[in-house]
């Protein structure tokens, strides 16, 4: 399933993007208004300058040729037309006076120049008045009148013109500069706003594309999960789970119905074994769960392996998640396991080989990934490595759980070559030997094959060799330890093999040997340092037994007697064809033990019914009539052989009960108040069969002679 985008990033991007656009839009408006204002001011200023120019031009016209001074001088030089020129002069003077007033408004800073103009005008006006009233006869009369200094007025006019030009140039230059600054600012703002808008549009498009892809991926994942019988849930912001397909409702039923009780409480009630770090609980609390497999016991007591995967919804703040739960048990193994126990054995063997390989491969991969993790790799590689390491952890758990599941309550059973065990023992014993102690592990005879756990046999032999070596060291003797394998009948007509571990040490105390003949090695034997309880347990679990003896003057011998390799198939066909003279219920959590007993009973024509759990045995006692019940003491669960014996006495009071156990000395005390017979597993098997045959001989043969063996 594609990981949902996180919730924080989109909000952040949209917020920053819109803020960016807003700021630069404001700047754009500000610069636009300012530029417009400057434009208006520039136009007004230019208008003012033009008006000033017009005034100055008019002033110049009134003063220059054909104007004020010209008319005055004509009036002086042309007495006949004096009045006409003086009249024209008068009009010029009035116009100049008006123009000077206007100039004062336009050039308030040039009062001196304007004053000079006014003074020159007044001087000419006074002289003109004098001229109007006087007849000039002599040049000397004319001279004082015309000797008016025009320089100040001319200079004033030039200054005014220059000032007007300077002012215009300076002001316009300033305005142009501001206009350029504003234009650049406006352009930047415009580009920024456009860029941000375009970026947001592209981002929105990408988000849309990712969202569509995620939706499509979810759809495809949902289809796939539907195909494999998975359930999909949606965890809402209110902490409630919504089921999105039928499988989810079928798998979790009432748990997902909305109720007044909080979901977490309902979960803890439904799965009382659930822990706080459980992936299912974590998923339903809205936390991310990559892909984890856990075993759950459902209210109907069925146990299922569920693969849990959850991804938070896009907006993490809401605490929602999409949860996918696939019933791995049902999809992978349940169908195969439902009918036939032998499939459990097959699966167990497959699981063991897979687990062994997976663990080795996982260790190799883990080192490789750890190495890559330490390197500076770019891109998505670090995330991939992290994911791979997580997957390895899941793989480890899955491997372990698969093994636990496949072998739960049952023996690790496989067919193996005895030579492999002895080769490995030889390799390891090099390190156990000391200078003066030789360890000789001999080759196994050809074709020596056993059924059971090779690791357990090897562990038992290591125990025996180490114990023999310790005995020699403690006695301060040089010596030799020999391990060899012989062919031997385990029981009459039951082929077997015997591992013999002999040493040249002081041998066993007689009480240890005597104790071992009647029962399992006692605590005192264990305390003696032999570790014989472990060896005994291994042998009994494989349907064999252990014997201790002292060789005449040559040290001790421990022999492990085991049945030869046999088919993993129960004797269903054989038993079905037998004439069943009696019905026996065999109850033992070890399939090896029930299978061995089944074979031996079959040889004497007695059909058996096997149960590998107390629950199944109690059910059988309620529904079937038996003539004999043989049960183990420790059934590896809450109920034991005591419950089987008690139920038999209650439901079928006339049926005898035999307890067949590894630890008969403990059982004697435990069954003190129950009417049972007790036999030790291992070397008391033959006695058990004889006693059973004797008990069954007293019972009438069943009417239904075709009652067949079946496994539960």
């Amino acid at each position, binding site marked *: 399933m594609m990981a949902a985008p996180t919730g924080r990033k989109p909000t952040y991007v949209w917020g920053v993007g819109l803020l960016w656009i807003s700021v630069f839009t404001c700047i754009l408006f500000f610069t636009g208004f300012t530029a417009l204002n400057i434009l208006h001011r520039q136009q007004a200023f230019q208008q003012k300058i033009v008006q000033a120019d017009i005034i100055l031009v008019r002033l110049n016209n009134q003063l220059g040729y054909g104007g004020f001074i010209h008319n005055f001088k004509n009036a002086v030089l042309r007495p006949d037309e004096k009045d006409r020129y003086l009249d024209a002069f008068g009009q010029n003077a009035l116009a100049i006076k008006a123009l000077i007033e206007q100039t004062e408004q336009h050039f308030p800073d040039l009062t001196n120049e304007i004053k000079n103009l006014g003074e020159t005008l007044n001087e000419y006006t006074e002289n003109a008045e004098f001229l109007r009233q006087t007849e000039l006869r002599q040049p000397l009369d004319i001279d004082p009148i015309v000797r008016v200094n025009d320089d100040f007025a001319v200079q004033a006019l030039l200054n005014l013109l220059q000032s007007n030009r300077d002012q215009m140039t300076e002001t316009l230059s300033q305005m142009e500069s501001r206009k350029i600054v504003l234009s650049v600012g406006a352009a930047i703002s415009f580009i920024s706003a456009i860029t941000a808008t375009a970026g947001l549009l592209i981002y929105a498009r990408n988000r849309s594309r990712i969202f569509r892809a995620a939706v499509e991926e979810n759809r495809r994942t949902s289809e796939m999960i539907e195909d494999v019988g998975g359930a999909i849930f949606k965890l809402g912001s209110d902490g409630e789970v919504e089921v999105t397909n039928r499988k989810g409702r079928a798998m979790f039923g009432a748990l997902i119905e909305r109720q007044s009780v909080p979901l977490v409480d309902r979960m803890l009630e439904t799965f009382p074994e659930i822990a706080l770090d459980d992936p299912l609980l974590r998923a339903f609390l809205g936390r991310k769960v990559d892909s984890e497999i856990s075993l759950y016991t459902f209210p109907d007591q069925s146990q299922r392996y569920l693969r849990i995967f959850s991804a938070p919804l896009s907006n993490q703040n809401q605490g929602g998640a999409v949860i996918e739960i696939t019933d791995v048990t049902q999809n992978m193994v349940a169908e195969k396991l439902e009918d036939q126990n032998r499939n459990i054995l097959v699966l167990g063997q497959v699981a063991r080989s897979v687990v*062994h390989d997976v*663990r*080795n491969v*996982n*260790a*190799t*991969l*883990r*080192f*490789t990934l*750890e*190495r890559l993790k*330490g*390197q500076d790799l770019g891109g998505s590689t670090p995330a991939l490595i992290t994911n791979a390491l997580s997957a390895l952890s899941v793989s*480890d758990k899955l491997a372990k759980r698969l093994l636990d599941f496949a072998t739960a309550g049952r023996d690790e059973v496989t067919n193996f070559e005895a030579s492999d065990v002895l080769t*490995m023992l030889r*390799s*390891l*014993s*090099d*390190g*156990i030997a000391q200078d003066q102690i030789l360890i000789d592990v001999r080759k196994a005879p050809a074709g020596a094959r056993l059924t059971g756990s090779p*690791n*357990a046999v*090897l*562990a038992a032999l*290591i*125990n025996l060799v*180490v*114990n023999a*070596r*310790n005995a020699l060291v403690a006695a301060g003797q040089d010596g030799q330890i020999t391990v060899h394998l012989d062919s031997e009948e385990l029981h009459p007509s039951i082929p077997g093999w015997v591992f013999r571990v002999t040493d040249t040490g002081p041998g066993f105390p007689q009480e240890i040997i005597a104790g071992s003949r009647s029962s399992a090695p006692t605590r005192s034997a264990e305390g003696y340092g032999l*570790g014989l309880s472990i060896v005994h347990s291994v042998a009994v679990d494989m349907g064999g037994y252990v014997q201790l003896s002292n060789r005449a003057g040559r040290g001790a011998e421990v022999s492990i007697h085991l049945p030869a390799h046999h088919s993993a198939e129960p004797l269903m066909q054989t038993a079905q064809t037998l004439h069943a003279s009696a019905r026996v219920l065999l109850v033992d959590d070890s399939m090896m033990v029930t299978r061995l007993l089944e074979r031996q009973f079959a040889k004497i024509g007695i059909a058996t019914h096997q149960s590998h759990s107390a629950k199944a045995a109690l059910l059988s006692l309620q529904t079937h009539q038996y003539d004999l019940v043989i049960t183990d003491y420790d059934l590896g669960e809450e109920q034991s052989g005591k419950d089987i014996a008690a139920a038999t006495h209650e439901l079928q009071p006339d049926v005898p009960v035999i307890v067949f156990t590894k630890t008969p000395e403990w059982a004697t005390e435990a069954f003190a108040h129950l009417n049972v017979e007790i036999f030790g597993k291992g070397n008391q098997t033959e006695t058990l069969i004889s006693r059973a045959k004797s008990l069954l001989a007293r019972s009438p043969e069943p009417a239904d002679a075709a009652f067949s063996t079946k496994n539960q």
Partner: protein
Amino acid sequence: MARLLLCDDDPMYSLALSALLGDWGHSVKTTETAQEALDHLASHTVDLAILDVVMPGGGGVSLLHQIKDLYPNLPTIVCTGRDFLFETPLMEIGMEKADEKIKKTIDPADLLAVINRLLKQAKKVG
């Protein structure tokens, strides 16, 4: 940087572990048999050895004893993928000379800590 000797008959495991040890700054010599390991020790200086317990044609336990007889101060780690051996007396009796016994599935960080500790101890002794 320490000079490490790794002896394991599983070449993939050796390759991965030696690469990781190399990244941790160590120089690693990988060997697949006990004899190769002994030959290397005879002609090179080694600061720490890591030996597989179960190898065809001569196990790591025997190799451990030979190494400790010849080079008693060489820190030596034995490792195995057969976890059940840890439940036998072999670990205490046969491999008592090993400075550390680990499972092959050990977490790399723990392995690094073990190696660093042994090298530090050896340096103090040396």
